[in-house]
């Protein structure tokens, strides 16, 4: 018998026992459903976490600070060699040391600058504002505009969505390309003296917005490191701590081992924070949840295997005559065994299709899940991948065939003379 004929006959036999076929398939579909949803939740969770990571930091960036006293030692006794404490500041020498480490592309100090006000032009109202410097390539969610390589260009500024109305823009798109002026004041050590000021005009390159994936959102203006440095130099000119910084942002070369670079910087005597630590921890957590749920699915599939075996044994008993007739007509053992194995495969296929089909329906729940968890609109915590479903259905067919092995063997071994004895 050809494979095509066998598949057709197998399908027909199942149609003749519709209720039994459906019930057995449903048992498998419970497992298929659970596994599919678990995998989808895992994929969705990972995608969401990835967004979360991207919007809050840059995997290739490391935050480096001076080493703090954390070696569990007792405090040093004060003596002649002691210096006045200088907690957590880095200077230009540190920058050079860090820059010299392998795979360190850029070292940007964390400049601390403060603005007096921002305004559209001389006649407009003035508003207070915070000015941040974008030193890493964190992907920030934008309401309008674009940022090449997630960096702010020199002379450009990213404006918080909340500022738009006050600045007189009707929409985020309208603000792009327009300019705003920010006034900075020189830090003065002499009280009462009128401080020097600096007016800087920026072109609005983008408007950033708050989303559920941004953990720490600040209504602010964001400018480039180049502008940040010049403003910092202006504000802090003449101060004692001219060239000292709270920390630096290190950009690791693309494709380089971030972890190894982090260790190298730590060994050079600095404290390093990286996003990868957080990412690894979050992914591990998602994996545990995902595999846990999928595990229950696999248990359900395991239970359904016994259902398949049982159904197939009953089917062999019911069709003893048919098997006997086929053998009398010259069907080989192989043909008969194959017929029953294909029937099992059909059952597995049906179960897989029903299970994944129902699971795909839960896709419709995504908007509800997003809104009930107060996530960004359009967030999909269940992410279905077609390939996974295909692999699952195929595996279920294989599992069903394996489960149907013993009933099929029983059918193949049946003695036609016994099978055709009627009385």
């Amino acid at each position: 018998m050809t494979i095509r004929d066998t598949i057709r006959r197998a399908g027909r036999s199942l149609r003749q026992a519709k209720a039994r076929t459906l019930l057995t398939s449903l048992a498998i579909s419970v497992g298929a459903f659970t596994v599919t949803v678990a995998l989808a939740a895992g994929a969705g969770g990972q995608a969401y976490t990835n967004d979360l990571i991207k919007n809050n930091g840059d995997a290739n960036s490391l935050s480096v600070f001076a080493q703090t006293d954390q070696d569990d030692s007792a405090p040093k006794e004060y003596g002649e060699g002691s210096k006045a404490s200088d907690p957590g500041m880095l200077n230009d020498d540190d920058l050079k040391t860090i820059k010299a480490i392998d795979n360190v592309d850029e070292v940007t100090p964390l400049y601390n600058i403060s603005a007096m006000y921002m305004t559209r032009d001389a006649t407009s109202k003035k508003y207070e504002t915070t000015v941040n410097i974008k030193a890493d390539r964190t992907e920030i969610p934008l309401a309008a505009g674009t940022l090449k390589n997630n960096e702010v260009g020199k002379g450009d500024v990213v404006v918080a969505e909340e500022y738009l109305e006050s600045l007189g823009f009707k929409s985020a798109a309208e603000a792009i390309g327009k300019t705003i002026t920010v006034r900075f004041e020189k830090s003065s050590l002499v009280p009462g003296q009128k401080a020097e000021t600096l007016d800087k005009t920026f072109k609005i390159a983008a408007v950033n917005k708050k989303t559920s994936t941004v953990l720490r959102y600040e209504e602010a203006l964001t400018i480039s490191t180049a502008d940040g440095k010049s403003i910092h130099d202006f504000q802090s000119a003449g101060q004692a701590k001219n060239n000292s910084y709270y920390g630096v942002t290190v950009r690791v070369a693309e494709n380089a081992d971030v972890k190894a670079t982090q260790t190298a910087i730590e060994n050079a005597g600095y404290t390093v924070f990286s996003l990868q630590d957080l990412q690894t921890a979050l992914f591990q957590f998602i994996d545990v949840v995902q595999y846990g749920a999928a595990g229950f699915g696999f248990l359900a599939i395991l239970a359904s295997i016994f259902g398949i075996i049982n159904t197939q044994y009953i089917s062999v008993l019911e069709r003893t005559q048919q098997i006997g007739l086929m053998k009398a007509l010259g069907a080989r053992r192989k043909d008969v065994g194959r017929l029953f194995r294909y029937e099992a495969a059909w059952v597995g296929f049906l179960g897989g299709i029903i299970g994944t089909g129902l699971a795909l329906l839960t896709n419709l729940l995504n908007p509800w899940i997003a809104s009930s968890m107060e996530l960004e609109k359009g967030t999909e915590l269940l992410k279905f991948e077609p390939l996974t479903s295909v692999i699952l259905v195929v595996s279920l067919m294989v599992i069903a065939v394996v489960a149907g092995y013993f009933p099929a063997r029983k059918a193949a071994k049946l003695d036609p003379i016994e099978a055709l004895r009627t009385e």
Partner: protein
Amino acid sequence: MIEVKNVTKTYGKKHNKFTALNDVSFTIPDGASVAILGKSGSGKSTLMHAMSGLDRPEAGEVIIDGKDILKLKTRQIDAFRSHKMSFIFQSFFVQANESCYDNVSLPLEIANVSPRTRGKKIEAALSAVELADKKKSRARDLSGGQKQRLAIARAIVNDPKVLFADEPTGNLDSVTGDVIEKLLFDYAKNHKATLIIVTHDAELAAKCDMQIHIKDGKIESITQPKGAK
């Protein structure tokens, strides 16, 4: 020509040993119709099973077309049965849930006949038994006589050279039985096929060229056809 030489078949072991066939020998010329007669338990069914290779006797030879089928491998006997032989049973054994067409298609599928030529053969077989109009009907909706006609269509669809019929009219009334008998004899005559009928119906046996009487596993008497050696 079918030659059966010294075939012995026993069931059970030692004390429970039962000899179903005891040193049976005979020859059937090509195209003959043969009746194997005997009471139930006489060994006539066992003889049919041995001749078709469904059963394997301990001793003896069954030579069909010069080949001892008892020496063939299982796979070869299966192929032999699917291409050269066919069966008709007392209880029809048609697949009740399948259409007449699919019932008749089964032997062709088993014999790996290409799907293109199947259609014609099936139609021809169904026409021969006057069931062409029931092609799409399910076998369970047929009467007893129609079921046996369907079984005959299934048996003749692949042009077998040897047709075994095990009590073909046993479950039918005499009028329907006559129709079935006619179909069987007509097929054998038109296709020069050997027809072997296992029966205890003396009237049916009388219509055959040759009668083999079996009792307790032994041949009691053989009525040879005219012109045979």
